[in-house]
């Protein structure tokens, strides 16, 4: 922590709004009170989360060093900053950047903070936020005051609150948009920030704005509340409005949002958002965290009941002048260029510049102007790069820059005449990499690098794939170049793997008695059309074989695609069975530990992945065989369910997925109780008694979530399936099977 923390308050006196200054004084007091043990740790945890101060891996004071799990010797006289979270353990600070809009001054402050409080790297997230890692909680208020002095708040960046309002980084300059959504995103941000009706949620609430339906810049369909700009002719006049969807979201099981209103007038946007917040706060789940997102409320009620309840709530709201004040003048708002328009230059034989022009430059709807995307590897940039970007944005534009959901920056309003000089300056700062939005531009969550929930190294894998692809990206077929790869370190989908062409999420599997990092390969997702469809996992492959898997999948696509066929359509046409066959060999003939220890470690991490000698041969052989046999059946069944769904057999698919859950639950029960029958009632009853009542099955972070999938599926076994509910059941079955694997391995380790 910094020696100078107390100096910033005085130094920035008068530069913060009175409200921000008050808020931060209060937060400072809350930190002090927690230090004195006068605030409960759970209360403090939510308090700091609502200020964006998040936990980080190893903050429970334990770390596996490759041989054994060791205690990290944080001061033991210090309080905790949350349950099981050491006070001194470094944490992550999330910084909200509404719709990605930043100024050069803000970039410069971000650079200072990355250097002084973090590890020198500022990281852009898949929701246009910034994250700084390894930050000490006692530095938080100085850091936040410095941000507040340039108009950035971290308030409600985490916790059960309205999170960053995201939006198209091309809003206002895109040729395809209905209109510029930026002023509305800004209005919603201001309106909901700290709003009393948005403080009592069971979980987070994520809004997003898109300017059009066909592209993916805003990803409206995968948000709790998604707004897409639309216009209508009314009495010969063009009227603005929003197509509003609700209840979308990725998470463990992704949900497509439902249409709340096909055309909502802008004046209704804020009151409806307020009413929706009230309904979510009042009726949303609070106790069971895993069911507490608004998507579950919408799914349980159905969109009609949800809409009706929100509209009733809307009718009861007391009028608030801000509903219209905040959007006044939105129609006339427009950024301005610094320099006169000009034509785009030729690459003139400069190959790298030519590639960059092709992938990173996009024509604005304003003649003679272009956007330039700064492709950041894994969303990371240094303090010097932030300062260089600030200089470049000032030199060539009026400071018009935005972060993107693909973890990049977009510089807007670049005159065609300046493009060449801009490229030179970006390249000199190490920011001129080509391949924005291409297969190389891999999106990844933090994974095991810093996330407490990470199972496999998503960033390690992303870096490895980037390295291999960058050697040959522009030699690849165009169809491959434009694919999207997205990676999550676990099933929680922060890397948005469901909406990639090729998605991965981390899982762990036992191999020859050791744990081995794996990734589930997720295919069939769609990035375009605002995340138009979600993929499903087809097979888990050892982490070290994922680069081969990418080669196989892309090779097969190239060989077997029809002319002009997009990847998602190709996957749907050939079917997952065939693609899986292409990959099956990667799950076989796995090397013994001694023959290839590297196979048993994750990317860029030499530590052995397993927690040691996981009961190698310790359990009775018969039981292990029965277990493994049953689990392999369950996995086959869940895959078959996908195939059935693809063929249009929703009912059969849902039933098959449910049977896979029963099968895997039975596999676990059978270890203790060999005589358990095949009767689902008995299996579930025994499972509940042995694994739920005892808490043995519960995940350390997700708690009873996965067990609840089984119980809910069993309870509704007789309910007919739609295509959508079958899709959910398949996802749940897959996750339940993973949880059975984890529980089994954990039990074996304990027993061993």
């Amino acid at each position: 922590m910094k020696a100078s923390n107390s100096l910033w308050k005085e130094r920035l006196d008068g530069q913060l709004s009175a409200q921000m200054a008050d808020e931060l004084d209060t937060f400072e007091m809350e930190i002090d009170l927690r230090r004195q043990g006068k605030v409960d740790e759970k209360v403090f945890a939510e308090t700091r989360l609502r200020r964006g101060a998040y936990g980080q891996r190893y903050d429970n004071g334990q770390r596996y060093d490759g041989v054994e799990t060791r205690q990290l010797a944080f001061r033991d006289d210090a309080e905790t900053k949350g349950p099981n979270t050491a006070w001194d353990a470094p944490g992550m600070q999330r910084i909200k950047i509404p719709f990605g809009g930043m100024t050069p001054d803000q970039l410069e402050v971000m650079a200072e903070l990355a250097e002084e409080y973090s590890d020198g790297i500022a990281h852009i997230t898949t929701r246009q936020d910034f994250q700084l890692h390894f930050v000490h909680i006692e530095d938080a208020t100085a850091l936040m005051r410095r941000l507040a002095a340039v108009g950035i708040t971290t308030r409600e960046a985490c916790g059960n609150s309205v999170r960053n309002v995201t939006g198209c980084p091309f809003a206002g300059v895109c040729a395809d948009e209905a209109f510029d959504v930026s002023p509305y995103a800004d209005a919603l941000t201001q309106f909901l920030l700290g709003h009393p009706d948005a403080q009592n949620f069971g979980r987070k609430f994520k809004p997003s704005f898109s300017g059009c339906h066909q592209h993916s810049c805003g990803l409206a369909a995968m948000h709790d509340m998604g707004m897409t700009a639309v216009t209508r002719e009314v009495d010969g006049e063009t009227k603005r409005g929003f197509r509003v969807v609700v209840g979308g979201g990725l998470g463990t099981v992704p949900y497509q949002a439902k249409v709340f209103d096909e055309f909502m007038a802008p004046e209704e946007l804020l009151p409806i958002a307020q009413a929706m917040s009230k309904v979510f706060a009042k009726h949303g789940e609070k106790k069971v965290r895993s069911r507490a997102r608004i998507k579950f409320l919408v799914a349980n009620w159905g969109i009609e009941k949800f809409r009706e309840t929100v509209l009733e709530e809307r009718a009861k709201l007391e009028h608030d002048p801000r509903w219209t004040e905040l959007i006044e003048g939105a129609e006339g708002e427009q950024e301005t260029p610094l320099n006169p328009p000009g034509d785009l230059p030729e690459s003139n034989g400069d190959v790298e510049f030519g590639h960059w022009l092709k992938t990173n430059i996009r024509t604005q709807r304003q003649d003679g102007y272009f956007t330039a995307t700064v492709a950041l590897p894994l969303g990371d940039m240094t303090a010097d790069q932030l300062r260089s970007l600030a200089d470049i944005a000032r030199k060539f534009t009026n400071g018009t820059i935005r972060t993107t959901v693909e973890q990049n920056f977009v510089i807007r309003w670049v005159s065609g005449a300046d493009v060449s000089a801009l490229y030179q300056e970006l390249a000199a700062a190490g920011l001129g990499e080509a391949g924005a939005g291409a297969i190389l531009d891999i999106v990844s969550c933090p994974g095991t690098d810093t996330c407490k929930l990470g199972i496999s190294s998503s960033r390690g894998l992303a870096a490895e794939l980037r390295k291999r692809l960058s050697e040959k990206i522009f030699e690849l077929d165009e169809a491959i170049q434009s694919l999207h790869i997205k990676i999550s370190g676990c099933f929680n989908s922060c890397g948005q793997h469901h909406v990639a062409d090729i998605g991965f999420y981390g899982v762990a599997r036992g191999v020859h008695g050791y744990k081995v990092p794996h990734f589930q390969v997720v295919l069939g997702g769609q990035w375009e059309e605002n995340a138009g469809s979600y993929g499903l996992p087809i097979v888990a492959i050892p982490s070290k074989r994922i680069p081969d898997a990418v080669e196989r999948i892309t090779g097969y696509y190239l060989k077997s695609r029809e002319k002009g066929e997009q990847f998602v359509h190709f996957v749907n046409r050939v079917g997952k069975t065939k693609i899986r066959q292409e990959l099956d060999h990667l799950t076989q003939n796995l090397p013994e530990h001694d023959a290839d220890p590297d196979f048993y470690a994750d990317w860029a991490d030499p530590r052995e992945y397993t927690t040691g000698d996981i009961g190698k041969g310790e359990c009775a052989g018969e039981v292990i065989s029965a277990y493994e046999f049953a689990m392999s059946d369950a996995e086959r069944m869940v895959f078959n369910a996908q195939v059935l769904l693809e063929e249009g057999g929703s009912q059969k698919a849902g039933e098959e997925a449910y049977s896979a859950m029963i099968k895997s639950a039975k596999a676990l029960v059978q270890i203790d109780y060999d005589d358990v029958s095949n009767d689902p009632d008995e299996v579930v009853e025994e499972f509940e008694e042995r694994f739920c009542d005892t808490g043995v099955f519960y995940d350390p972070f997700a708690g009873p979530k996965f067990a609840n999938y089984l119980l809910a599926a069993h309870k509704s076994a007789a309910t007919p399936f739609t295509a959508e509910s079958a899709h959910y059941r398949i996802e749940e079955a897959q996750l339940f099977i993973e949880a059975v694997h984890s529980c089994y391995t954990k039990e074996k380790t304990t027993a061993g």
Partner: protein
Amino acid sequence: MELQHVNVKILVDGDITVDPGRFIDVFHRWIREGVIEGLLIDVADYRHVPHGPGVMLIGFDFDYSMDNAGGNWGMLYNHKSPLDGNNDDRLSTALKSAAQACKLLETEFADDGLKFSRQGFELIINDRALAPNTDETWDACQPILQSFLKSALGHEEFELQRESEPRRRFGVTVETKQPLDFDALA
């Protein structure tokens, strides 16, 4: 003037002769074997960032990195927590720690010929509230640094070059006419 959060970076001599990925393995081992005294937490891999922090050994009070800022590989020591004592003590802790890490890495990679420069180092104060990069800071710091370096290096044949970009942290490049003696420093 109180100088805290001192950073010292000693550059690799010539081109780097080791694949930076190998520092990951070494740093993990240092954690496991407690090679460096103090609380070590994890290793961060930023090799994908052009001119970035390279490979970092993250600790509680300090970080060590094989850093590639400015495209120059070197051992960077960053003292993060406030230190008691006077300015000399704090400057000395940073310089010693960096020199010690260089020695360890030279031993680890002796076969690869990894060598760090004996011609000088960079010294940064990582705190803009205590030491903004201004003329006033330079005026106040110069005598402190001169006196410390004279005693730490054991001679006066060195030159200081101040960081000229005002937005960057206050810092100096120390160029010494007599080679640095890592054994004596560490």
